[in-house]
């Protein structure tokens, strides 16, 4: 277990703040996108891309790189922000999200965007793709770890649980699922729309080691990511309890902000709040 310094925590909180500010700008500029689910995973993406993942922005195809799969593809803007901040492509590209001819698509496109490991957009696919990557590296060649960021919507889909069965069958300890569990989806609260609980029991029954954390606590995220690497007998899920719309008071825990665009006044208020978050 690594000891994570206060300065690292502060740095990663700053990256997460910039992710949220970028997402807000991108959604407002484009008048489209998904702020709620992008805000809920900001600390997770910051911790992965600015500390934990073995990656090299100069070599997006480096064979030994860790693989990160954004299964919840509607958080594309957050992924684009962290990739740009990390240097996979110029920051200015964020301004052309969704423009004709731009490489940044509405949802991630692995063919067009450097650093995007897999195209996504329809929910549920990340886990079983991660299992395939785990099986591939067992047959020789470079070794790496595979991360899949899944949402509650992901885990409502049948194919995700098929992937969980496969991960258990192959004891895919190379796979760490990070579940951005904000309990809010497009139509309302996940626990009303299609309940997932008891989720810890479900993951354990499906053969996963479960590490429950607060998904906005950077130290807990870093420690969980380290702990997952020490589990060699089974796949791990980091069950990160998060708040949809985290950082903007009027967006938090609101299904309305799954895929909504702020007005000019809302934009200014959100920007002011995000600049001061965390205090």
């Amino acid at each position, binding site marked *: 277990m690594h000891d994570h310094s206060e300065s690292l925590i502060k740095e990663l909180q700053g990256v997460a703040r910039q992710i949220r500010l970028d997402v807000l700008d991108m959604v407002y500029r484009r008048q489209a996108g998904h702020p709620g689910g992008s805000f809920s995973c900001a600390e997770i993406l910051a911790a992965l891309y600015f500390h934990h993942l073995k990656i090299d922005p100069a070599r997006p195809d480096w064979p030994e790189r860790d693989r990160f799969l954004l299964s919840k593809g509607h958080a594309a803007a957050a992924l684009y922000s962290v990739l740009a901040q990390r240097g996979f492509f110029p920051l200015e590209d964020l301004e052309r999200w969704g423009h004709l001819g731009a490489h940044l698509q509405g949802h991630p496109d692995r063919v067009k965007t450097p650093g995007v490991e897999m195209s996504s957009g329809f929910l549920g696919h990340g886990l*079983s793709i991660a299992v395939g990557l785990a*099986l591939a590296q067992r047959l020789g060649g470079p070794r790496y770890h595979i991360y899949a960021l899944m949402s509650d919507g992901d885990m409502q889909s049948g194919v995700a649980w098929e992937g969980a069965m496969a991960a258990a069958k192959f004891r895919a300890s190379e796979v760490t699922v990070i579940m951005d569990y904000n309990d809010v989806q497009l139509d309302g609260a996940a626990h009303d729309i299609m309940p997932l609980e008891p989720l810890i029991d479900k993951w354990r029954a499906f053969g996963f080691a479960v590490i429950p954390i607060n998904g906005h606590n950077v130290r807990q995220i870093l420690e969980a990511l380290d702990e997952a690497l020490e589990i060699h007998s089974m796949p791990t899920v980091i069950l990160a309890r998060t708040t949809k719309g985290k950082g903007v008071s009027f967006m938090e825990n609101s299904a309305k902000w799954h895929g909504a665009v702020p007005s000019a006044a809302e934009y200014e208020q959100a920007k002011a709040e995000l600049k001061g978050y965390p205090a």
Partner: protein
Amino acid sequence: MSEIPQRQAYGIALADYGDLNEAVVVLDADVSSSTLTKFFADRHPARFFNMGVTEASMVNVGVGLALGGKIPFVNTFAALLTLRACEQIRTCVAYAHTNVKLVGGYAGLSDYKDGPTHFATNDIALMRAMPNMVVLAPADNREAARMVQVIAEYPGPVYMRISRAVVPDVFDDSLTVEIGKGITLRDGGDVTIVGCGSMVGRCLRAADRLAQEGIDARVLSMASIKPLDEELVVQAAQETGALVTAEDHTILGGLGSAVVEALAEHHPAPVEFVGLKDTFAETGPDTETLMDAWGLSIADLVAAAKRAIQRKA
């Protein structure tokens, strides 16, 4: 008639090619004893993954293997593969342009005893509508076997359908297989019969019968439905003036549609369709009898050829 079913020829070829190419891995969804990928499983157990009845997830695991540098052959019955995993194929294979080889067994009506739930009669239409996807229906055992290496070495998504049944040999050892190329099996000037998969043998026999009546039919074998050898089809339309298409598949969106799309653009000509006429068909005593009963007989091909000739301007 060949001695062994087409699925067996495919299974043997896949296991043999596995000896030559370490990157090839094989997945099946609990039907390896039916698709006969079990031959590969027996010889290369470390490179075979039985995924159980998780077709959608199996395609995604194949996608992950492809992203990890392997060449996955993802197998199950054609209907299950293209219907249950249709979205995974669209999003994670075709759109993401991953190097996945999808092989659908029990094509057409060849699973005669299990009935319409198990028939694959719209798989070609579905896979044709996927951008980036190559769609193949080899005519006989030799072509199916040679396709294995061709599709493994092709960089991109491929769908290939394989019959459960014994299919007539139509090629000799001189066969050269190439994606995007059709093959003229018999020359003729009065009409052209374009077939794919298990219909090609029947097309040749129909041409024999037409010859007895003094009608000179050309026969094209179109294993590569997408990309289609448009040049060969257009040339046939120019030189024979009328065509018949033949497939063990619905006439909506399959080989016949591909042929008339090409002709409509380049050289319109009368075309008659032999295939399933927007129906599910039914269970039958054997594949050949079932095909005869549902409009895919040699007599149906002969009649269609005559109608096409009558429609010449």
